């Protein structure tokens, strides 16, 4: 679906000639002539206007009644008056009505000072009330959830919060009850409003009716400053505004970016800022001493690390976690490659891919953008769960389906929260994306007239998918229109056969003609926040900066673990990652960490691996303190700016990396943060010329710049001749293991007081049929095991769960599924 073109029209507002885009609502059109029309219920982000509050009434010549400017599109030649006696009378009337039952407790209200109701009453109200009846009084504030308080006295029933719940998040948990003047905002039967995006209603509320529990009474608008940056808690990289008071982050607000987040935030992004200031945070360097980590001076820590690394020399493996910035990643690989002379550096969790495949998948021509998800003809969600993996994309996909009738297909192993919105759902067995993609490719061929039905049937069976559904998917993708976007999770290319699955994906993309089409293409959801940027900065075992060739490829993460365990490597350098938490195959990593003679970590929290194994810990900056850039999955370089100074003794990571290099005898030539950016830009040809100024507040997509032509072309981007993978092993009474990482599985969530309640515990998600067979009931405690390892979990039934598979969470401190080796596990009552 092409984006609508905009035509300009000319109209008259209060005697001024105003030129505005056709069909925008009058309220917005008026802004082009610097005319402000007051609104309460109108919020274009919430979809079609509802015209409920009536604050925006204006006079339009030729229409006898006053009209709501929020719902009247501008037309050429329209003559509008916003300053007539009639309009003033109506505006004063509405303000008077709204204040009838509003408590006017502004002095004790969090919203005071940044409250639209205050502003509009002051600017457009009559400044008097003739209402002398007693006002309503209710208990206040009441909890709406652990995160949100509701003060129903203050509510002006503008409908924004419930519209958000129903039409944007589509969780339908927050509703209006009763009717007329009795109407109130509530949930069902006293259930809390807990949903991934609930916090947005705080920002939407134009009065102080919905307030943030963690922010309540922490500051007044005149105490605070706003500071724009980017949230690095997941790959969605939403733009945020930190509210800062006295060097403390007190709140996070959305910083509307139509190409990134559409003005929304998930609750992790909104509330996990608390992790910046908690006691659990590491703010001093530490060294293991007598088996315990003890705080030491920077000098000692640096010296210790430098000398130990110097001793290890080439026998060091380094891993960068997803939150690492481009600059940090770039400096890390310089440290490892140029100073320590090791090739073993990686940032990917799921094993390495060939350089050619990286180039083919990352090529600008194949790239779709976030807003393409909204304007595409069809979207395929492939082996990822947006709400967990990059939450804001979940809202964008819903928006496309709801507003632009995008045809949505979901192809995953685990039931998706997007299933109800999808035209088509296809399930395949966990880890069988390769077979599934081959089946899909064959089915697309069948749709194009090739006799490949049998092949589809065979491959679908190998993938544990329904062949009919695969054909239906092929039909949907080939007939909905040319603009198809495939949103794929990095787990597709994870594991041993990741390379082949990646090629199969390229084959499908080629079949669908997604390359070189604006508005169509592939969009990867990386496993880590800055997965794309780190690859482009050269934090891969087989690629240097700019996906350049390296003389000798090193070991990938799994290879590093094995080499350390085998004694081939002796030291580990962990930049923002705890392998026990973040990487698959926990057993292998435990062995490696046990054996390593040196573990240097940059960490903000003492997660289990760091606590038990690190020898030197450098306190890591929080994202609110960081300076640098990250790269969005669609290629947008975004700039992080420090909102607060370093907490405690924390130092910038780039500084620490440069200092270590210096102590090891090499000056990396980096003395300020921007110098690191300059070096990175100089080293990555397709970033050429980018400056921090150019990135500005909104970032910049490098694939859309001219320098993108310097992107190294892959030898081939397909089609590839591919062998079908071996079919999944027969279960023999066991269950397939599927894993997922919840949005709440993050150390920041664990330590943020407000979010603690959301931190996940292990649950075994089963289909009702399997549960019946195993005689298990919801709430039962079970052990799930394979090859001598087992984890404990609570049974949860899910109707949509495919039979024969059990789903467990990873990235949680206890009982993480990364302890288990698939593909088959046994589930037993504990």
């Amino acid at each position, binding site marked *: 679906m092409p984006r609508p073109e905009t035509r300009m029209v000319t109209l008259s507002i209060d005697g001024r000639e105003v030129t505005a885009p056709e069909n925008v609502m009058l309220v917005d059109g008026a802004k082009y002539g610097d005319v402000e029309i007051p609104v309460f219920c109108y919020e274009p982000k919430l979809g079609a206007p509802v015209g*409920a509050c*009536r604050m925006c009434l204006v006079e339009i010549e030729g229409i006898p009644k006053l009209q709501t400017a929020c719902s009247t599109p501008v037309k050429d030649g329209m003559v509008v008056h916003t300053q007539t006696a009639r309009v003033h009378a109506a505006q004063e009337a509405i303000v008077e*009505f709204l204040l009838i*039952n509003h408590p006017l407790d502004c002095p004790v209200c969090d919203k005071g000072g940044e409250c639209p109701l205050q502003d509009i009453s002051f600017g457009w109200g009559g400044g008097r009330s003739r209402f002398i009846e007693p006002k309503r009084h209710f208990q206040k504030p009441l909890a709406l959830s652990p995160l949100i308080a509701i003060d129903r006295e203050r509510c002006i029933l503008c409908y924004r919060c419930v519209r958000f719940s129903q039409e944007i998040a589509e969780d339908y948990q927050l509703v*209006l009850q*009763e009717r*007329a003047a009795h109407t109130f905002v509530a949930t069902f039967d006293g259930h809390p409003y807990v949903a991934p995006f609930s916090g947005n209603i705080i920002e939407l509320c134009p009065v102080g009716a919905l307030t943030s529990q963690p922010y309540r009474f922490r500051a007044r608008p005149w105490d605070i400053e706003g500071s724009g940056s980017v949230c690095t808690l997941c790959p969605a990289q939403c733009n945020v505004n930190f509210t800062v008071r006295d060097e403390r982050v007190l709140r996070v607000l959305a910083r509307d970016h139509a190409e990134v987040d559409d003005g929304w935030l998930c609750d992790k992004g909104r509330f996990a800022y608390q992790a910046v200031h908690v006691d659990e945070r590491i703010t001093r360097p530490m060294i293991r001493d007598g088996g315990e980590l003890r705080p030491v001076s920077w000098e000692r820590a640096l010296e210790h690390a430098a000398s130990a690394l110097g001793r290890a020399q080439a026998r060091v493996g380094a891993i960068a976690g997803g939150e690492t910035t481009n600059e940090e990643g770039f400096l890390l690989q310089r440290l490892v490659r140029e100073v320590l002379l090791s090739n073993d550096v990686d940032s990917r969790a799921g094993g390495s891919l060939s350089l050619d495949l990286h180039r083919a998948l990352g090529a600008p021509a194949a790239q779709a953008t976030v807003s393409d998800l909204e304007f595409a003809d069809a979207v395929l969600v492939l082996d990822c769960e947006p709400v967990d993996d990059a939450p804001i994309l979940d809202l964008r996909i819903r928006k496309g389906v709801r507003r632009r009738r995008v045809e949505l297909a979901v192809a995953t192993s685990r039931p998706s929260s997007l299933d109800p919105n999808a035209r088509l759902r296809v399930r395949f067995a966990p880890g069988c994306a390769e077979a599934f993609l081959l089946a899909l490719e064959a089915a697309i061929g069948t749709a194009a007239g090739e006799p490949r039905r049998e092949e589809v049937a065979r491959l679908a069976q190998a993938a544990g998918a329904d062949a009919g559904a695969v054909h239906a998917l092929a039909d949907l993708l080939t007939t909905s229109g040319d603009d198809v976007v495939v949103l794929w999770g990095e787990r597709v290319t994870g594991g041993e056969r990741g390379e082949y699955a990646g090629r199969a994906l390229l084959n499908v993309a080629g079949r669908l003609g997604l390359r070189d089409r604006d508005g169509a293409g592939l969009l990867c959801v990386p496993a880590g926040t800055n997965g794309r940027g780190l690859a482009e900065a050269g934090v891969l075992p087989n690629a240097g900066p700019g996906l350049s060739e390296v003389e000798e490829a090193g070991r990938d993460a799994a290879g590093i673990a094995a080499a350390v365990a085998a004694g081939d490597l002796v030291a580990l350098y962990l930049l923002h990652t705890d392998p026990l938490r973040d990487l698959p195959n926990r057993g292998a990593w435990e062995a490696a960490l046990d054996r390593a003679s040196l573990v240097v970590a940059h960490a903000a929290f003492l997660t289990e691996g760091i606590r038990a194994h690190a020898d030197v810990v450098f306190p890591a900056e929080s994202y609110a303190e960081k300076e640098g850039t990250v790269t969005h999955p669609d290629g947008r370089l975004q700039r992080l700016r420090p909102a607060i100074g370093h907490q405690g003794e924390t130092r910038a990571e780039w500084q620490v990396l440069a200092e270590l290099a210096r102590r090891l005898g090499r000056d990396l030539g980096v003395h300020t943060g921007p110098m690191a950016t300059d070096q990175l830009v100089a080293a990555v040809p397709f970033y050429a010329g980018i400056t921090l100024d150019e990135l500005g507040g909104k970032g910049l997509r490098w694939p859309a710049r001219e320098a993108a032509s310097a992107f190294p072309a892959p030898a081939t981007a397909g089609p590839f001749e591919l062998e079908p993978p071996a079919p999944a092993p027969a279960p023999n009474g066991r269950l397939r293991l599927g894993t997922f990482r919840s949005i709440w599985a993050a150390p920041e969530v664990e330590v943020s007081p407000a979010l603690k309640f959301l931190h996940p515990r292990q649950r075994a998600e089963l289909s009702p049929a399997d549960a019946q067979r195993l005689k298990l009931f919801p709430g039962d405690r079970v052990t799930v095991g394979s090859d001598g390892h087992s984890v404990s979990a609570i049974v949860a039934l899910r109707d949509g769960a495919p039979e024969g598979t059990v789903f467990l969470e990873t990235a949680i401190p206890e009982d993480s599924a990364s302890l288990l080796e698939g593909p088959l596990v046994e589930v037993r009552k504990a």
Partner: protein
Amino acid sequence: MTQLILFKDIDEPGLATLEVYQRRGGYEGMRKALGMSRDQLIAELEASGLRGRGGAGFSMGKKASFIPKGTMDKYLVCNADESEPGTFKDRELMQKCPHMLIEGMIIAAYAVGANRAFIYIRGEYELQAQILERALEEARGQGYIGEDILGSGHSMTLWLHRGAGAYICGEETALLDSLEGKRGNPRLKPPFPANQGLFQGPTLINNVETLATVPHIIRMGGEEYAKLGTPGSTGTKLVSVSGNVRNPGNFEIELGTPAREIIYGLAGGPHEGREVKFWFPGGSSSPVLLPKDLDLPYDFDSMAKAGSMLGSGAIIVIDDANSVVDVALKTAKFYRHESCGKCTPCREGTNWTVRMLERIDSGEATPMDLDIMASVQEQIIGNCLCVLGDAMAMPVGSMIAKFREEFEAHIEAARERNDALTTAVAPPEALIQGAVA
């Protein structure tokens, strides 16, 4: 004497069954219509001059002609919510002659090319719902509803949808939301239902009486029908008369019949020794009229000219034994209760008005409050999302304007009564408590 159309056989035993209805010529209009083209049908309806009987009085034929042509999903909805206080005509029609409505709906659906039709009946009408369900079964059994009706190529489904008690669902867009399973909130217009109504499809919505008239128009011809009534208000109309009259009930009159004839002639006038004090000519939403207006012809234009409206054709007569304050309070309370709460002026304005009226009633007001109340009504009128707010503000405003002295006298009397009471008994403590309570 009025030529009876809708009520011609109304009390015939068994008229609610298909058999008797057909014996009385039922479904002939449908047969005739299915032989005509859609354009011809709409032309007949326009020629009849039939104006909607649900309240707004918009030309039925014109509304049908707004429905776009084409093959998209189109809908016909019968508004059988009948909740306007004083109105009970649709109830009698549906109960006694359900097939007349069904026949009208089949014709209307055919005329606009609608394949899905619904009757939205208020939840309280239990008996009428049962009767309609039975009649619908009969009609389906005859093939009048279903695939390829009588070989015409036209197919349709027709289901009864029962509401659950909300006056606002009579407002056509609120009705659509309610029928879609939502809270019955009115929608912004435009888009109008004719373009984007039920499930986003073009939708024709008409009142029960409007649709029940359709078969007769087709049978007798639009022009013939237009000869009845007055040029601006053609045809006959069912009028529900209630309140302080001796013989309350439904009457079929030719539009233009003097109101006095209806109230005194048909409904028997006020009880022994009583006089008409004022009357609502078109349900409780219509501004009240005085005895001097009784000789006006009862039709759309004359009622509008008199500053009121014909509305749903429900006349409520109030005699001189009643206080206007009571009636104003009842009226306002009704609208406060029934406001959907979506838009500010209606939600807050009706609430405020009731509370002021309560103070007036209890003697805690001054004449200045009457000015405020009148001004609040003006602040409501024209500023709401739908006209429910106006539906309170107009009659209440008209009562204040026309009976100001009585309001003032009431305030004065109540105050004197209170003074006597408080100085005699109430200790200040209780007064303070009372202010909170």
